């Protein structure tokens, strides 16, 4: 399946300003794996040692929250996946 991952602009310095990344995968986990292969600087930022998404990020598919995150959740063709980092400034 082909999907697009949209990244929070606060991550731009780790992605050379690439904030929209096309990926392929059957599941969220596979899509995240491909994302960090394409943008290796994101790996330590996004994933813990077991390959799970850090708790400071949330994932939305087509604008809908998918909490609690299941890395085996299927992805459909054309899905837009938003990875949202917590922003705390005021």
């Amino acid at each position, binding site marked *: 399946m082909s999907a697009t991952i*949209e990244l*929070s*602009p*606060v991550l731009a310095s780790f992605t050379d300003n690439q*904030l929209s990344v096309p990926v392929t995968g059957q599941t969220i986990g596979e899509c995240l794996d491909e994302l960090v292969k394409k943008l290796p600087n994101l790996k330590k930022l996004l994933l813990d040692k077991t390959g799970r998404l850090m*708790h*400071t990020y*949330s994932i*939305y598919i087509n*604008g*809908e*929250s998918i*909490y609690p995150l299941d890395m085996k959740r299927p992805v459909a063709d054309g899905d837009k996946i*938003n990875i*949202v980092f*917590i*922003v*705390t*400034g*005021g």
Partner: protein
Amino acid sequence: MLTPQERKRYERQIAIYGFGESGQEKLKKARVFVAGAGGLGSPVALYLVAAGIGTLRVADRDTVELSNLNRQVLHWQENIGQEKAASAAAKLKKLNPDIEIEATAEPITESNASRLVGDADAIVDAMDNLPTRYILNQTAIAQGIPFFHGAVQGFEGRAMTVLPGRSACLYCLYHGATLPPEKCPVIGVTPAVIGCIQATEVIKYITGLGELLTDRLLVYDALGMKFTELHVKRDPACPRCGNLKSE
């Protein structure tokens, strides 16, 4: 009841369809607690006071520093070294002398948040850290007071409105995740936009107009100049609001 001077002062907003004198009277009776008088708190407080909120209570523990002045427009060069709460109160009183301004430099903690919020009709999150935001979220839930969340970093901002027992709360959004305190990079126009969205939400809530930003996280990307709406679900297992019956 509005005075002739108030009718004149607010005539342009009273003229808005659905707003009217009754909307202005609702604003006049309202009390709003603004947590923070910094980048977000400045536009929130300025626009609520300009709009005629009856009482605005603002809390900020910090003093004004030179590096605040790129975004914290309530504070000026001459205020460096002063308490932000006092600096904010002085400007807001000059902007609109009819408004009751209550300012405190007391830090917001778990033990005093309820007292500081008092009988407010709305709590505005203009903080710069997540732990205090969670305290305010919890206070809002415990007292059944709407909570207006905002946050910024760089050219990016977020906003969401919480109606306790009716919509997702901050804990439903972030599930208790925490981050160490840090000085976020930010340019003033970002909190200006998000603060104005928060103030708009407060005005809509008090006047009963429009559709609130509930169960929706609004993400503002200033560099891409786009707004994205992400749907947030109320978490039935939320340790903060999960026990509240849906209204």
